[in-house]
């Protein structure tokens, strides 16, 4: 068995920023897990900006910050202006020709603090110290300092005569306004380099990328949501993550035989101490069973020999996520038998431990235990004997079905791992009306699209402008067994009609087509026209 999560490495310092595949990944908005670009905002603006070099990537990182998005000039945010100019849908203009060399790299938009410093040097003759004072005044919003700097700027501009006094005043007011959003370029470039490195890792070492990202997702504000998004993103890249398994007891998520396996530590209710104890118990029982490996034990052997020494909550969690799924027993049956086992007294469990090999399963073991000690059984008195008879009754005649229904498996895995790995909800439905999978849509299939999906997120949104101002619409994130799509839009009228069907975990067929954002040559969004609920 080969574990390789950290064995592959590359030297980021030696990378040049000219790998077309890496830029393609960023331009396609496949930026889940990419430094600074993993939010929905990052994904959507990456597709519009389409950066092909570090300079453009640094600009992208800078313009998707809140200040830039909110800085409106002539009814358009600075972010939008940058993108429109980059995509040649708006003409690039400069307040004065002298600004062109300074602002050319950012489509004529003042993005960086360093650009303000350069303007002050070129137009007002500031030395580096004075230019740095300007940066401080902008960055720290010091009114007194700003007034002093403004005076010096205007005096310098008059003296230098590159621009008129009026133009100098306008340029300075523009610099002042930029204080709300302008970003430090050296900072932005560092971010862009890190973003490129992580995109490189995702492009060329995807298994290691997802594996490590899953390990560190516990540090995110909502680890379960992060895990879900990563696993679904991995699915889009045909990488499937497996639950922890008896075949590979790894503490942390790891790559085992070429596949990512969740570690025991990824399971809710499981901690380091419990894992260490679990491993010690397993190894001691393996010795007792003459080196019989855990993966060769039967459920009955595990239950009678190991379970009494393992933390109950941990074992319930492991059974629920399919840790023992290679065994013939259903998860429900294992949980039921473990519950029965826990109803025994310590003395009765000890009797079972010693005598387990004489019986083939829990039912026969309990039947043998039921008589009192005097009668050759394991119980102390008639009362205990009667209680064990009840346990036998329910093993023989279960009060409820012990089959694993997919809905329960999905919910259990979501509860303990954050994501369902064994089943996709949609798999249990009749999807013959659908004609496209999510992967086919992502890969470019267009036309009259009908996708059978499970809704994984609904984001309501109140329209702020246009004819439908004030009305509610929604954005959906949907998934099927081939992947996940987070660019589904349902406009107000359709939202009103179908909102009763649009809730998390519902299975539906979404009918509609791709959204055409010709301005950015992006058409990967999906506009919902009709929804059919699946049973």
């Amino acid at each position, binding site marked *: 068995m080969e574990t390789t999560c950290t064995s592959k490495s590359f030297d980021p310092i030696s990378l040049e920023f000219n790998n077309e595949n890496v830029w393609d990944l960023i331009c396609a908005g496949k930026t889940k897990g990419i430094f600074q670009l993993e939010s929905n905002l990052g994904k959507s603006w990456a597709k519009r900006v389409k950066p092909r070099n570090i300079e453009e990537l640094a600009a992208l990182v800078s313009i998707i910050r809140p200040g830039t998005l909110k800085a409106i000039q002539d009814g358009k945010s600075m972010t939008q202006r940058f993108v429109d100019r980059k995509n040649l849908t708006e003409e690039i203009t400069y307040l004065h020709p002298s600004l062109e060399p300074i602002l050319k790299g950012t489509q004529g938009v003042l993005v960086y603090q360093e650009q303000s410093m350069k303007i002050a040097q070129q137009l007002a003759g500031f030395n580096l110290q004075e230019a740095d004072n300007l940066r401080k005044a902008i960055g720290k919003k010091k009114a007194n300092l700003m007034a002093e700097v403004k005076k010096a700027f205007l005096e310098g501009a008059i003296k230098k005569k590159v621009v008129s006094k009026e133009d100098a005043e306008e340029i300075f007011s523009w610099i002042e306004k930029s204080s709300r959003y302008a970003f430090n370029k050296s900072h932005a470039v560092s971010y862009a380099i890190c973003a490129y490195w992580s995109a490189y890792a995702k492009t060329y070492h995807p298994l290691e990328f997802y594996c490590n990202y899953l390990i560190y997702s516990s540090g995110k504000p909502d680890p379960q949501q992060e895990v879900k998004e990563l696993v679904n993103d991995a699915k889009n890249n045909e990488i499937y993550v497996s639950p922890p398994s008896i075949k590979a007891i790894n503490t942390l998520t790891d790559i085992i035989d070429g596949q990512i396996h969740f570690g025991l530590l990824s399971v809710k209710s499981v901690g380091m101490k419990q894992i260490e104890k679990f491993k010690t118990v397993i190894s001691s029982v393996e010795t007792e069973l003459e080196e019989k490996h855990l993966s060769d034990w039967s459920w009955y052997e595990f239950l009678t020999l190991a379970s009494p020494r393992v933390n109950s909550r941990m074992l319930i969690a492991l059974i629920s996520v399919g840790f023992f799924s290679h065994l013939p027993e259903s998860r429900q049956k294992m949980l039921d038998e473990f519950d029965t086992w826990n109803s025994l007294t310590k003395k009765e469990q000890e009797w079972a431990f010693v005598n387990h090999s004489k019986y083939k399963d829990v039912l026969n073991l309990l039947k043998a235990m039921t008589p009192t000690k005097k009668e050759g059984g394991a119980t102390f008195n008639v009362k205990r004997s009667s209680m064990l008879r009840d346990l036998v009754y329910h093993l023989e005649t279960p009060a409820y079905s012990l089959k694993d229904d997919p809905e329960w498996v999905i919910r259990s895995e*979501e509860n303990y791992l954050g994501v369902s790995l064994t089943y996709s909800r949609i798999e249990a439905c009749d999807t013959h009306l659908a004609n496209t999978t999510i992967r086919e849509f992502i890969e470019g299939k267009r036309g009259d699209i009908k996708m059978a999906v499970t809704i994984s997120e609904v984001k309501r949104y109140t329209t702020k402008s246009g004819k439908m101002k004030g009305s509610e619409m929604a954005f959906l994130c949907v998934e099927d067994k081939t992947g996940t799509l987070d660019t589904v839009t349902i406009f107000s009228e359709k939202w009103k009609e179908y909102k009763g069907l649009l809730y998390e975990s519902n299975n539906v067929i979404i009918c509609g087509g791709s959204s055409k954002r010709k301005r950015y040559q992006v058409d990967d969004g999906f506009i919902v026209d009709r929804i059919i609920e699946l049973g």
Partner: protein
Amino acid sequence: MNYRDIIVFDFETGSRNPYKTQPVQIAAVAIHGRKLTIQPEGYFESLIRPELDDERAIELGLDPIEDEALAVNGKTRKELAKAPQPKAVWKKFTNFVDKYNFKKTNFYAPLAAGYNIIGFDLPIVDRMCEQYGPKHKKSGRQGLFNPIYKLDLMHTVWMWMENNADVNSLSMDAMRDLLSMDKENAHDALQDVKDTANILIAFMKLHRRIAPKVKFEKAFADGNNLHI
């Protein structure tokens, strides 16, 4: 707001006083709270061994088992004597309900539902939880079902039928007649809960169809009325 599952349950008992009666059978059906469908594998049924010795039952503060009650639910003393004790059955029932508490918290606990449960079955649940658990840590009340919402189908039926001159009784049998439901196996706990679950689902679906058409927002600002 309904992201919890619903457990429709019913006790068959040996007498009529919910505070002293001995349950002899329990059955339940789990409903998917959003889809309003019966969960696959979502059925529970078990006999419960009561105290069949009348004097011992009275000593324990319980009603003796009445033959009339057994005649209604079709159970015999002989078969009940072989049934598991209440504690064992209750443990299995709590495991069954917990299976549908998908976040394992009180907030996500399934809603208790049934026919006349507020007046009859829920007091029995309280007694069983008091004796065998689970109990809510702070309130000390039953900790099995959702502590706030309870769905008593009889209340829903009353609201729809209270002005219907053709309906004289709200018993389950009267409902079966009215809705032309099969009465075979009626008063078997599992059959009763299946019937109750199906009627509940039908009403909830009806509500879902009608509710979006009702103008709730600011309805009382303009004449204290709700309009479709």
